C-alpha cells in the first residue's frame, strides 16, 4: 500500500513540475507585451525610457526563458509564486482567498452531481429501455449538449430575475461589511452557482454508470444472482453497487477537471469571486504570475483527485487489499 502511494506521489510531483514548465513556456511566448499589458497603454506611452527599461528588466524581457523559469522555480519552491499585478498582492494570497470560495462551490457540486448521477445511472440501468431509463437518458443527452454558461444564464433569468429567489451574483451581499456576512448569506449566494454546476455534472456520471451497470447486469455474477430469484434492481443493489462504485468514483475524481472548468464559466456568469474568475481576469489582463499559479493549482487539484481515486481503489477492492496483506506477511 505504502509503495503504491509513494509511487503515485512521485508521479504527482513530476507531473506538477511538467505543468509548470508548460504553463511558463506558454505565457512566455505570448505576443502580449507584459510591460504594456500591466501598466496600461496610456501610462506606457507617457513613461520615460529609463522607467520602461526598469520595468522590462523586472519582467525579464531581456533574459532567456530558461533563466527566468529557473528564477521562478527557485522562489516557487520557497513558496513564493510572485506578485499578482491585477490584484496587487502575492499570488499565494490571492489564490488562498479565492480558493476557499471556489472550493465550497466545487465541493457542493462535486458531491451532489456524483451522488445524484450515480443514483440516476443505476435507476436507468435497472429500468433499461423503459420510461425511467428513457427519461434519464434524454435528460443526460440534453445536458451533455448544453453549454454550462448558457444554463447558468437561464438559471439566472429564471431564479434570480423572474422569481427573485436568489441574488444576481457575488458571494456576499453588496454593501455589507465582511464581518457582518452570515453563513446563511454565503449559502444563499452559493446556491445558484452550485446548482448549475451540479445539474451539468450529473450527465456524465449518470450515463457512465448506466453503461457500466448494464455491463454488470450482463456479467455472470449478476446473472446468477438473478437466477437465484433476485429482481434486476435487487441484484444491482446487492451485488452491483460495490462493483459500480469503483469506476464511478474514479470517474468522479477524473471529472474534477470538468467541474473546475465549469466553475470558471459559472463564476464568470454569477460574478462569483473564485479561482475561475481570477483566472479569467489574469488571462485577460496579462497577469502572468497569477495565471501560472492558478494553472499549477488546478492541475494539482486534478492530479490529486486521480491520486486519491487510485489509493481508494486499493481500499475498496478486497482482491487488492488481501493480496497486499499477504505480501506484507510474507
Amino acid at each position, binding site marked *: 500500500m505504502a509503495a503504491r502511494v509513494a509511487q503515485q506521489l512521485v508521479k504527482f510531483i513530476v507531473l506538477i513540475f511538467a505543468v509548470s514548465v508548460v504553463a511558463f513556456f506558454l505565457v512566455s511566448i505570448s505576443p502580449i507585451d507584459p510591460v504594456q499589458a500591466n501598466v496600461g497603454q496610456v501610462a506606457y506611452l507617457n513613461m520615460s525610457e529609463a522607467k520602461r527599461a526598469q520595468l522590462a528588466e523586472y519582467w525579464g524581457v531581456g533574459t532567456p526563458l530558461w533563466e527566468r523559469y529557473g528564477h521562478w522555480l527557485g522562489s516557487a519552491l520557497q513558496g513564493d509564486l510572485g506578485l499578482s499585478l491585477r490584484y496587487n498582492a502575492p499570488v499565494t494570497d490571492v489564490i488562498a482567498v479565492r480558493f476557499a470560495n471556489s472550493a465550497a462551490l466545487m465541493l457542493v457540486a462535486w458531491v451532489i452531481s456524483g451522488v445524484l448521477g450515480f443514483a440516476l445511472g443505476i435507476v436507468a440501468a435497472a429500468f433499461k*429501455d423503459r420510461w425511467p431509463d428513457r427519461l434519464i437518458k434524454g435528460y443526460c443527452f440534453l445536458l451533455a449538449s448544453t453549454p454550462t454558461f448558457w444554463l447558468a444564464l437561464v438559471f439566472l433569468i429564471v431564479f434570480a430575475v423572474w422569481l427573485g429567489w436568489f441574488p444576481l451574483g457575488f458571494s456576499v451581499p453588496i454593501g455589507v461589511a465582511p464581518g457582518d456576512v452570515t453563513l446563511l448569506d454565503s449559502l444563499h449566494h452559493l446556491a445558484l452557482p452550485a446548482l448549475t454546476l451540479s445539474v451539468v455534472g450529473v450527465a456524465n456520471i449518470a450515463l457512465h454508470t448506466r453503461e457500466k451497470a448494464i455491463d454488470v447486469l*450482463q456479467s*455472470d*455474477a449478476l*446473472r*446468477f*444472482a*438473478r*437466477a*437465484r*430469484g*433476485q*429482481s434486476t434492481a*435487487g441484484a444491482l443493489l*446487492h*451485488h452491483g453497487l*460495490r*462493483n459500480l462504485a469503483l469506476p464511478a468514483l474514479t470517474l468522479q475524481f477524473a471529472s474534477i477537471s470538468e467541474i473546475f472548468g465549469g466553475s470558471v464559466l459559472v463564476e464568470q456568469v454569477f460574478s462569483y469571486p473564485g479561482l475561475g474568475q481570477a483566472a479569467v481576469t489574469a488571462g485577460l489582463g496579462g497577469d502572468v504570475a497569477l495565471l501560472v499559479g492558478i494553472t499549477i493549482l488546478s492541475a494539482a487539484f486534478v492530479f490529486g483527485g486521480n491520486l486519491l481515486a487510485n489509493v481508494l481503489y486499493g481500499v475498496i*477492492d*478486497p*482482491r487488492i487489499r*488481501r493480496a497486499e496483506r499477504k505480501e506484507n506477511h510474507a
Partner: protein
Amino acid sequence: MQRKPSEIAPYNLPTTDALGHPEMSSAAAAQPPRNHSLIEHSSTQEHHHHAHTPASRHAGGHHLLQVEGLNIGFTLYESSRRQGDDRQSAAAGKGDDGLGQSAGAGRAQHVGQDSKAGQAPFFAAQAFLRARQNLVPVIHDLHVSVHAGEIVAIVGASGSGKTLLADAIMGMFEPNATVKGRIWFDGEEQDARSLAQLRGNGISLVPQSINHLDPLMKVGKQVQGFAKKAPIAGKMRENRAKRLPMREQDLSAPGHSQSLSGRGTRKERVRKQQELFARYGLTPKVAQQYPFELSGGMARRVLLCCALMDNPRVIIADEPTPGLDLELARLALADFRDFANAGGGVLLITHDIELALQVADRVAVFNDGTVVEETAVAHFASPVTLKHPFSRALWHALPEHDFAVCEAVDKSALLPFDGDAPC
C-alpha cells in the same frame, strides 16, 4: 388444449394436461394406469416418447420439468456480404460460440471488417446500414423432460446453444431473442413471468464456475442470499396448496419443507447456510473468504450450496465440472446423485458424454439446435439401441470404442432414422 375433465381425471390434475402432450389421442388417454406416479419403470422402458429408467418417477402424475417444442432465435442483422453468401453466414451465426451467453457479442467486429473487404467503402457502408434484421434460429423444436428422482444429461458440443436452454427454463432471455415453446414445471404450464418467479423458488441453477459469484462479497453472505418479496403470486400459491395432499406420498422430495413465502428470515438463512457448509465439509472459515480465495473443489461445493439454500425441486447444472480433476468431478456429480435420490430432478448440461454416462439416468443428445434423442443411459451400451445417427456417432467416439467417428457417421447416415419406435 381443449380437453374434457373425464380425460384428465386419472391424472388428478386440476388444470393442465399432466404430461403436456396436447396431441394425446383420447384412445390413449382413455386407458391410462390408475395412478401413474406409482408405476415402477423397468429399465429403459420407453413411453412418453422417451426411454425411462427405474429412477424416473412421475411424482404427482406428471413430469417434474418438461420442455416442449422450444424454439429460440435471435434477431440479427444480415451480414453485409454478397447475396450468395447469405446462407453461409446465417449458418455461421447459428453455430457461433458467442450465442451461449449474449447473442451477437463479438460479431460486430467481423461485420465491421466486412465493410473493408474488397468492396468500395461507400457501398460497403451502405450495405451495412441498410442490412435487414432477420430471425436466426438457434434452438428449434426441442423436447426434454426431467422426472422426479433422476439426472438427465443434455450432451452436446461446447458452444452449441445448450446454455440457452438453461436460460430459457430460468426465464432469462436476451433482449433480441425470440423464444417460443411450452415449459411445464410440476405439472403447471409456465409463462415468462412465472418462470422468473420459479428462479430460486423451485428451480435452482448451479453455474459453471466461481466467476458467477460476486467477487467483492464474502462467500457466506452470498450463499445465504438476500430476502426477497414472496415470489409466488397468489394464484400459484393457491395451486400449490391444493396440490399439497397429492404430494404427501412424496415427502422425501426436496422442496417439501419449503415455506411458501420467500426465503425466511436472515437468521434462518444463516443457520441453513451453516448447516449446508457443515454437510458439504466446508469450514466456517470459508464463509469469511472471498470467492477468489477458494480452491476448485471448495468453489464447486459453495456453488452447490447456493442452489440448495433455496430447497429446489429441480437443479439445472450448467457444465458444473470443467476445470475439476476427475476425482472432484465424480464427487460433484455424486452430490447431484444424492439430490436426485432424495426425489429431486437434475438437468445436467455438459459436453462430456463419458461423465454423463457415468452419473446420469438418461441422456438427451443435443445436436444442431435440438435434442435428437432422449434415451436411457443403458441404451448407450450398444449402438444398436441408439436411434439417431448422431447418437451412434457419439457412441463410436467414446474412447473405449473405436474412435471411428467419420466412418460411423457415414454408415449410420445411410440407415433410415425411425424417430418413433414402439416401446
